């Protein structure tokens, strides 16, 4: 069946994106359906459940029976308490007392014990897009519709940042960004590099305060370093030494200077989100760019990207779609497409190794 993977790379499109609080957080939505939101606008706030602290209060007060604690309690479940506040004792000011080691909420008292939940960490969700709220998910977040350029990558380091788009210096790449340039152009920017990320590049990004990087690929050995890197990093091709495809580069080169949302989502096998770059673009009154086409069957003439060696990252047009499985050089036999590349080559490529762009 000629349906293949999709990785949207579109210069002008309509997207709908969820902006939700992380799973297992409790929160509230700060936007309403139909509301226009800006990049930095907070659309939801919530709390990440914090750890529970167990206080063996009866033992601390040297009570012979745990139930005797009830008469000495100075707080009850639901009370907010400060670190150092007396929770139990004959006198809250002096003598033998049980003090709270953390700021938080009393969640349980009984059986001679007090349990305090430390104050939860607060989280806020930014819109990250200039657009309109089209749906509200109670207690979780919103769905926002926006217009602009969309480039989906294959890997991200689980950070999100927003900044102006810049291209790396043509000659020396990321390694050519020095202090004298940084203040003016690159500090806090989203920088596009055409080359595979190396250890020196990662170091330069951190040292120079670059906010995010769009790279074609990265050495696999740098994985842990990239995960812990302060900048948001997106790979458009994969791991190894792969160059950026012209399709992606052409779109990004035309948008230098624009505010860019780098959503470097770390792919998770149980989650369907993808890392992506989105750049809001203005629409004329009444204009609405087309949404990505998701129900595309392969057909002759369609533009595709090849996702495995030896032509990994190459973009070409489908010339032919043989109906029967074809024999590959390595002895496997599978359904293939014949793809015409800019180099003049016309390789047979397994359908499993093709992606379409959403148009």
């Amino acid at each position, binding site marked *: 069946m000629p349906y293949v*993977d999709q990785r949207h790379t579109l210069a002008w499109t309509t997207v709908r994106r969820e902006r939700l609080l992380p799973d297992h957080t409790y929160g509230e939505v700060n936007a309403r359906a139909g509301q226009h939101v800006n990049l930095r606008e907070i659309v939801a706030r919530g709390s990440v459940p914090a750890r529970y602290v167990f206080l063996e209060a009866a033992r601390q007060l040297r009570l012979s029976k745990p139930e005797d604690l009830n008469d000495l309690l100075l707080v009850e479940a639901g009370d907010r308490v400060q670190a150092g506040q007396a929770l139990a004792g004959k006198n809250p000011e002096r003598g033998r007392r049980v003090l709270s080691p953390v700021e938080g909420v009393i969640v349980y008292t009984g059986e001679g014990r007090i349990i305090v939940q430390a104050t939860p960490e607060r989280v806020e969700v930014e819109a990250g897009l200039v657009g309109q709220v089209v749906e509200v998910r109670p207690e979780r977040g919103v769905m926002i519709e926006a217009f602009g350029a969309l480039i989906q990558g294959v890997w991200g380091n689980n950070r999100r940042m927003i900044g102006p788009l810049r291209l790396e210096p043509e000659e020396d790449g990321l390694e050519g960004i020095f202090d004298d340039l940084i203040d003016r152009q690159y500090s806090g920017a989203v920088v596009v590099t055409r080359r595979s990320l190396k250890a020196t590049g990662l170091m330069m990004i951190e040292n120079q305060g670059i906010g995010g990087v769009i790279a074609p690929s990265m050495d696999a050995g740098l994985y842990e370093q990239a995960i812990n890197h302060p900048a948001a990093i997106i790979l458009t091709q994969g*791991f190894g030494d792969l160059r950026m495809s012209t399709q992606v580069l052409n779109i990004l080169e035309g948008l230098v200077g624009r505010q860019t949302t780098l959503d470097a989502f770390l792919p998770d*096998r149980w989650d369907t989100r993808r890392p992506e770059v989105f750049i809001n673009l203005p629409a004329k009154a009444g204009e609405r760019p087309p949404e990505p086409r998701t129900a595309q069957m392969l057909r002759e003439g369609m533009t595709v990207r090849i996702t495995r060696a030896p032509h990994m990252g190459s973009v070409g047009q489908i010339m032919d779609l043989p109906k029967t499985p074809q024999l590959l050089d*390595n002895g496997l036999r599978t359904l293939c497409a014949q793809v015409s590349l800019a180099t003049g080559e016309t390789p047979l490529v397994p359908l499993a190794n093709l992606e379409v762009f959403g148009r």
Partner: protein
Amino acid sequence: MAENRNGAILAADFGSVHTRLVLLDTVDGSYRLVARAAGRSTADFPFNDISTGLTRVIEELSSITGRTLMDGGQQIITPERTDRAGVDYFVATASTGRPLRTVVVGLVPEISLASGIRAAAGSYVEIAETLSLNDTRSEEEQVNAVIQAVPDMVLITGGTDGGAQEPLLVLAGRIQLALQLLDPARRPVILYAGNTQAAPAVQRMFRDLTAVFVAGNVRPALDEEALEGAQLQLGRAFDKFKENRGMGFDTVGAMSAVGVLPTAQSYNLLIEYLGKAQDVDVLVVDVGSAVSTLSASLNRQANTIIRTDIGLGHSAHALLDTVGIETIQHWLPFNTSYDEITAYTRNKTLRPATIPQNLRDLYLEHALLRAGIQALVQAARPAWRKANPFLTTALPTFDPLIGAGAGLAGTGNPGYSALLLLDALQPEGTATLRADANALLPALGALAYIKPEAVVQALEYGGLEELGTSISLSGQPRHDRAAMRIRIRNASGQLVEHQLAGGHLWVYPLPPGQEVEVDVRALGRGVSLNGKARLRLKVSGGSVGLIFDARGRPLPLAQDVRGRATQMPDWLAEVSGGEVMPIDERWLAPLAEADTPLTAAESPTPAGKPDRRWRGRRGQAATRSLTPEEQEQLDEEEDLQNALR
């Protein structure tokens, strides 16, 4: 649902990458596989809904068969109409989607906790946390750990029937406290499978907090393990979990006669049925993208192992982490760097559907596959030892051996599929090799209870691809010296004789459905045909034919890359009947010189055989065979590691 009808059956299996559909119908009074179709699963971006992929594949099946299967409302038509539109039964199985996050509680790590984890291994679960009496963390740390694990389920085991309840109730109390602290909407369900006498007390502890399932004790006595009850309840919990998750499971489940059955549970049902009804020792290994399953019936005891850390796509990098880089390198006939292998597995994880397009990638992919299957076999051995306490070989004598999953059964080259099974499972003596490229087995498992006759008939009438019969030598034959003398008398009475040298394979082409008489003798000291010096039997053919494997067991894979660079291309050519695809000399250069892997454009094309530079010597290049005591000790260590994983 149509009752007691004998019309068509449609079965769908939803994998992480592929959605496969088979249509069974009666031909001359027996159920047969009449059509199949497959396409990409749509559980991922941009659809997040498995029913989209189902509709597409059904449309393709309809175009192949000319039968209308869905109505205008995208509902499968049941029962079958007189114009042959629709089907009498639709069944669905799935291995896609997030597994149940589970906290397992047991008294002693090596006993009840290990049994609990083994029970969980038969379902799609991810062990998020464990608690036992040996846990040195404080109560506060334990309760916080349970809460932070964000479990969907807590499996509580512990105690033998009639034994002390107090320690078990202390641990259960920690879970009770954790649940009390959790928001009611986010509390996990409890599955209790411990000391039977403590069940009422445990139910009382949790009944006001969450749903409680009770199963039989997984460890009724110290020397007795009974996992079936817990596994059955786990299957029910999984069904409920899937149904509530959306992603189209509710839509598909409503149309199916069995809901959406876990694919692995379906394998287990089928294996159990075949083991008991037909009294065969059968093994099915399915290496999927995200999840892999090994299901086997030995001495009428069925056992299924599911591993979410073994897979060729979504779980490719997890597989590398599980087996280690040296294990992968052991199966490669060229030098590779850590970076190359990790780049490969990480890219496979990012694009799980892709397939190798050049020779180097093919070896990498198949190294992962072989290592993954061996890890599954190692995990299954404790259960096999229970079914056969006298087990001394690495693999019990299973017949047939069935491979499933796209990487194993969808190579498009039956020789490759057969060699992968032989290398990874290393059967000794005779074995029938089959491939399930169409996901027929999960369908049959789902049908085992509602239409058992369809199961037997579909298997009997060629539902699986018959790869052939293998006859494999045990022990270590001398390389390039006579190791097997083969006499084959074909149907026309003609005698074919062949002497096979040690370290090689030979294939006698015999199409599926044809039989010949075979007389094989093991030649040389220390070798046998699964303990016998001679085998005389009638065997049937397959798409590969009769495969004679005189390489020895354990497989004497060379310890050095140059040796493997001679062995592996030869073996591939000997089984597939193709020309030898030699390993490029540059791939054998020391890593510093070979740091840039060759592209496939530079990869070798089939050519003549390379010079034989490698000559294995017994006791040097070959892997040493383990004694039964060593194997048992290894099994126990592995069992413990699996339990603690």
